[in-house]
């Protein structure tokens, strides 16, 4: 209980009252119910499915509700190679998500174009949408993506606005 109170930003008073800041408790609620928009474009999507599966079990973090409607989600996991042609679709879906919204760039292609140094592939999705966390790997292991999710949660706990401040990079063997 004590530990839970700390993460919620609560103070336990003698009379069984909790006091906190509104932003803190909203942030606590938000970070434990990040509903992902699975932007599964290519092979990283397979690892993203494993991330939702029983072994890594993302429901421990409250993110098991993968929404296929952008209007019901607040975390976009961009999992795969984004081509110039696809970039407009990704941006449109991002625009349709309600604020506040966070973005994880999953894998090498999404973060930097990866091995596709080519005319057709966008060399990193941060060229057209703000990214909060970059997850390394080709594809990243599901546990590494889980770490990426935890970094987003930490960002919300710190009260940072989405797509601002410093970028967070999750290395391959975190």
């Amino acid at each position, binding site marked *: 209980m004590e530990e839970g109170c700390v993460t919620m930003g609560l103070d336990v008073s003698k009379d069984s009252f909790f006091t906190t800041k509104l932003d803190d408790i909203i942030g606590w609620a938000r970070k434990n119910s990040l509903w992902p928009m699975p932007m599964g474009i290519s092979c990283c999507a397979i690892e993203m499915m494993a991330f939702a599966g029983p072994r890594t079990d993302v429901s421990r973090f409250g993110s098991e509700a993968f929404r296929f409607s952008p209007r019901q989600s607040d975390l976009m996991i961009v999992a795969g190679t984004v081509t110039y*042609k696809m*970039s407009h679709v990704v*941006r449109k879906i991002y625009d349709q998500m309600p604020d506040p919204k966070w973005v994880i760039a999953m894998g090498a292609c999404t973060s930097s174009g990866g091995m596709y*140094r080519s*005319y*057709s592939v966008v060399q990193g999705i941060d*060229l057209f949408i703000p990214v909060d966390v970059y997850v390394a790997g080709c594809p990243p292991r599901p546990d590494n993506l889980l770490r990426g999710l935890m970094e987003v949660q930490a960002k919300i706990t710190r009260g940072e606005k989405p797509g601002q401040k410093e970028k967070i990079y999750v290395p391959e063997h975190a």
Partner: protein
Amino acid sequence: MKEIILEKLNVQFSTAIESVNEYRGELTIIVKKPKIRDICFLLRDDPQLQFDSLRDVCGADYYRHDDRFEVIYNLYSIPNKFRLRLKVRMSESDIHVDSVVPVWSTADWEERETYDMFGIIFDGHPDMRRIYMPEEFEYYPLRKDFPLMGIPGSLPLPRK
């Protein structure tokens, strides 16, 4: 099988055959461009040949003055279990070739791909549009003079 093909082609198209090459059991015939569709009809309809399957159409850019581009047709005869490769060559100044969609309808998307990547125009194709790149793209990416990383600004990104 090789002898039958060459014999049949020589009867009708002896002047249209530029060269015949066999390498590791793969037969390649380079034919003259104006006759490609007629040759394909013969190969498909002849009861002994029966090249009923067009496996792929692709292009090549040799980046030279004459006969810069090549279109390659990979045929397969399912009854005879035999593969055949046809090639036509063309210069940049005359970058047209007859479509083989009337022969094998599967050539539709493959010719569109070749058009998209090399700019080779297939006359008589029912829907000669780009297939991979955006409609308004102005270049042909698999040409040798196209830079690997593309031309900056030629593919628009969404506004950030």
